[in-house]
């Protein structure tokens, strides 16, 4: 059998296979902590993600707080943010002691999460711009958040105006034009002309943004129901 040299990608896959295996069969073991920490760094550099492995590490930090690395925890939280709309960020917070969450970088991440959870995309991008050192350390961050933003917009809007979309995904001008063209070609977006010079984007129909109006079997409301409301309006 010819002995082939492993490519870096193959080596990476082997590492992730080993760590996942450890997490599955031997998770309650203090000795695997360094492996899990390396795996976090690996997830960051290779743009992969494993919630189970990261929760396992946070648990070990909980068991032995003196071994906790704030930098690793911050990276886990950024990766968790990128997993939205999944609630991974909260799941991680449940395992991080309160006094650690009070530190500056974690407070910032919690604020960022809050903005995303409550649809405040403009505030999110403003805050993220102020915290470049935290978010730029993790490649793929911007794209992941844009993907989440589009997800929520797709749940909500049948047709959306260009400025609203632009603000949510933090892309403008020519870059936005290119982005829209790409989505139109690959994701079924339809670009229409709106009022005046505005542009409208029709997002693909899904069950969430275009549910049928359900017909109620009692289309007419009984009179006593109407009269009941009159005194209140009085």
């Amino acid at each position, binding site marked *: 059998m010819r002995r082939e040299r492993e490519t870096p990608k193959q080596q990476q896959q082997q590492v992730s296979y080993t760590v996942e295996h450890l997490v599955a069969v031997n998770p*309650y073991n203090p000795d695997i902590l360094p492996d899990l920490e390396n795996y976090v760094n690996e997830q960051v550099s290779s743009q992969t993600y494993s919630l189970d492995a990261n929760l396992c590490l946070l648990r070990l930090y909980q068991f032995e707080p003196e071994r906790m690395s704030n930098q690793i925890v911050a990276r886990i939280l950024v990766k968790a943010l990128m997993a939205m709309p*999944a609630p991974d960020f909260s799941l991680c917070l449940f395992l991080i002691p309160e006094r650690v969450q009070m530190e500056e970088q974690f407070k910032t991440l919690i604020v960022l999460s809050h903005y995303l959870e409550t649809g405040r995309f403009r505030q999110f991008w403003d805050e993220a711009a102020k915290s470049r050192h935290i978010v730029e350390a993790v490649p793929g961050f911007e794209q992941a958040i844009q993907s989440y933003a589009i997800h929520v917009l797709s749940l909500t809007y049948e047709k959306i105006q260009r400025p609203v979309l632009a603000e949510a995904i933090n892309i403008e001008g020519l870059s936005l034009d290119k982005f829209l063209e790409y989505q139109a070609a690959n994701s079924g977006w339809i670009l229409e002309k709106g009022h005046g010079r505005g542009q409208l984007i029709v997002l693909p129909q899904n069950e969430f943004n275009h549910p049928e109006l359900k017909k109620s079997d009692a289309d007419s409301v009984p009179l006593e129901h109407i009269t009941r409301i009159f005194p209140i309006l009085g």
Partner: protein
Amino acid sequence: MATNYDYEEAPATYDEAHRQDLGYDPNFVPDSVKSLVVHLYRHIREKNVYEIHQMYEISFQTLSDRLFKDTPWPSVDAVAHFVDNDQVFCLLYREMWFRHIYARLSPTLKQRIDSWDNYCSLFQVVLHSVVNMQLPNQWLWDMVDEFVYQFQSFCQYRAKMKNKTEQEIALLRQYDQAWNVYGVLNYLQAFVEKSNIIQILEQEKEGLEQFTATDGYDYSGGSNVLKVLGYFSMVGLLRVHCLLGDYQTGLKCLLPIDISQQGVYTSVIGSHITTIYHYGFANLMLRRYVDAIREFNKMLLYIYKTKQYHQKSPQYEQILKKNEQMYALLAICLSLCPQVKLVEETVNSQLREKYGEKMARMQRYDDEAFAIYDELFSYACPKFITPSAPSFEEPLVNYNQDAYRLQLKLFLYEVKQQQLLSGVRTFLKVYSTISLGKLANYMEVDDPTLRTILLTYKHKTHAVDSEGKVISNADVDFYIDDVRKTFSLCKYLCAAEKMCFKLPCVLYNFIAADTDGIHKQLWTNLRLGYVKT
């Protein structure tokens, strides 16, 4: 032998141990006790599961009530010679001995440590040697349940460093392996693995194994102990992970058990309740409200129908307590995710009776509402723990509430994020189409804020399930048409909500003047809760 989860742990010092010893002679064995251990030992050797169960559940309890109300049972050394000094029997007896201490008395630190040692010895025997016994599921469940309970109790005890005596601190330092979290988790994990229970359950689905069908008992001459301990350890792991705040992993540990069906977990009421309680709680924290509501509903209905049969049982008090806690959790879930049609009528009427008023107040989302969320959560939540060993260097403080405070804080944070959603829901029930401008006006916010509220509603009502799929748990829903600047409502109303469907449109037709004023008034009334929709 109910484990009283409520019971207040008084600081147990050495003086208390002496007082315990003074009141009785550990070597005195009343005839009734001798008779019990002799018969129990024989039944275990002869594998008479029914008789074992009777003695374990009834006789032991009766004697405890009659002779050992506030004293320990005779020491294991005093009874050993009645049972051929059988190692396994003595370990089982000791396990019950300690359980009695925890239930009726207050364990000293030394007793806590000795109990840990006993579990280690007992578990080693089961894991590493061939144990040829069949024990009732009740007993096997109680062992796992008690093991996790004593771990939780120890963590709580250890976290109260402030009034520890020097001897206690010295003992804690010396026996730092006792009840350490790695040990606890690894024993439970070892049972799951060594018993091969996950594969057994898998193979059972394909008809290659029998487990559930025999309630876990082995009718081919073997032992059920390892298999059933492995099975119950999955529930044990769910429970420990909930205590640590790791809900995701907890649910993963439970996955091999199909809770949509009956199973060995339903063969013991305590196990059934513990499983569903923790499953529901974990889903609540994961924002999968519909899953939580469904399971709480089923469990509460089951308890309602069957609790009369458990009145004489030592677990009765526990059953009632968990019942009340699950109603509180159900009230929380339904306030965050109003899906009343998921709740059966009997359960719903019980719920209204207990929490109807509080639920109405919770949906107003003012300061009072948060106080009620706090109250219900604190009442119903598990007793969270800090698993790490204390630092003996610093000034000694009590940190036993830290874990609970963190979970509560994060939960209330989530509730706060959902604060404005009830307003959207109220609107959804009244209007079929409304302009964004008008809606913003009635809700007294500006257009950008309104849009963020609507996005939040969509995000929070579309949970991500265990397979990563997005599912809507919204009872009423909408979409925005940014062209016509309207907000169109798409309704999935249940019977009770049909009353106000299309109402304002009807009114609009009848009352021509000042439609804006009417709408605004209606909105205010709805918001203040005067109109029940």
